């Protein structure tokens, strides 16, 4: 950093001088300039005093987070990150979602044959059955919970958008706050789309989530006024189980 030819010093040199970060040559220049210029000396004095005051702000104690809860959450996050980088299953959840959505359109027999719907549906049904019974077996979901409970109080609790991946949304259960879901910019949970009333999010999701520390919502779609949610929950052994939830009006959710 050098001084200008006009004889004036570059203003930032005052900060460098204050912080004792100048080389000897510039230090001497600033020192001489300050001796000869009362106005700049006044500016320097201001810098010095406010700098001291700013340092006082640091004297306010900040409580260190407790180790165990901090470590527990960190472990969960690392597991989620690692799960997110695992290879996709043979039939991805997105494909399953597509198949299930297709089934709801109830195509004609001819269409089914032409589009290969029947084998696709069979495959999906088998895959879903596996996931469902796996969830039952591992205690993530029990049959008693698999009932439709339409209620306006349904809340999937606090959602925090992860910085790393838009797909990874951690759902926590400690502090219910429906507003946060809207912050994810998902209009589906506003229960209204195109001025039509959509079904409420099903309480079963909340129950499932409550069974574990966290879950990852992969995507939420709507078709024919029905919200379809694909999410993953962490099993006891750390592996992720894909759950697809479609709130049929008169049936249990599809798992």
């Amino acid at each position: 950093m050098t001084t200008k030819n006009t004889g004036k010093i570059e203003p930032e040199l005052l900060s460098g001088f204050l912080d004792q970060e100048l080389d000897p040559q510039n230090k001497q220049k600033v020192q001489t300039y300050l001796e000869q210029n009362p106005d700049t000396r006044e500016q320097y004095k201001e810098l010095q005093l406010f700098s001291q005051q700013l340092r006082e702000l640091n004297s306010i104690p900040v409580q260190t987070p407790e180790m165990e809860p901090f470590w527990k959450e960190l472990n969960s996050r690392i597991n989620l990150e690692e799960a997110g980088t695992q290879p996709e299953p043979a039939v991805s959840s997105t494909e399953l979602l597509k198949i299930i959505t297709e089934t709801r359109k109830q195509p004609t027999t001819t269409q089914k044959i032409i589009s290969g719907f029947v084998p696709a549906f069979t495959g999906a049904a088998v895959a879903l059955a596996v996931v469902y019974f796996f969830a039952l077996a591992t205690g993530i979901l029990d049959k008693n919970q698999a009932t439709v409970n339409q209620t306006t109080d349904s809340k999937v609790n606090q959602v925090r958008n992860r910085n790393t991946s838009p797909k990874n949304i951690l759902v926590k259960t400690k502090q219910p706050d429906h507003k946060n879901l809207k912050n994810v910019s998902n209009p589906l949970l506003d229960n209204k789309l195109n001025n039509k009333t959509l079904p409420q999010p099903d309480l079963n999701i909340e129950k499932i989530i409550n069974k574990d520390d966290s879950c990852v919502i992969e995507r939420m779609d709507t078709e024919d006024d029905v919200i379809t949610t694909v999410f993953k929950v962490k099993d006891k052994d750390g592996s992720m189980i894909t759950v697809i939830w479609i709130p049929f009006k008169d049936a249990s959710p599809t798992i």
Partner: protein
Amino acid sequence: MKDYSEYSDSKLINLAVAKDELAFKELVSRHRGWAFGFVIKNVGQKETAWDITQEAFVRVYKNLENFRHDASFNTWFHRILYNLCIDHWRKSGRKIKTEYQDELSWDKKRISPTGDQRRENPEKSTKRREVLELLQQALETLSAQHRNIIILREMEGMSYQKIAKITDCPKGTVMSRLHHARKKIIEFMKKHGYSSSEI
């Protein structure tokens, strides 16, 4: 159970790379306090600070193998935290006036006065508190870069060289940004009726 408390950060990282969970836990235990403190000064909210600190450790974990052992873990981690704070600011705009400021509402129990301050008369003490409150507000009006640089220098007491490493910019830029940030704070204080003579 192994005791890693005497191990250097560098050694802990080597062990953590080899999937030694306890070594990584020791690293977290050792650095979470100052990291959280740095972030909360930046973002204001405890919950957000917790989140960002967590995220920073996740990034550390994911990049342990990339750590260059000729650098200090502290600087490397500061850089991760700094970048996450800047990201947070970019995403959330400048709405940071929150809990931290509430904490800074000068509850007398929380601020332990220095010897000189104890001898101050009550009127002067009140004035000082007002000045510090205003300074906090002034900090909140700064851009993310300016705010960070003030925190790194004035609160963390770092050298220009270390700040340059963390913020990934030349030393001259650090000095320039720091000066501009200080000038903005002084302008804010003057605008609110305070001058150096009143402190």
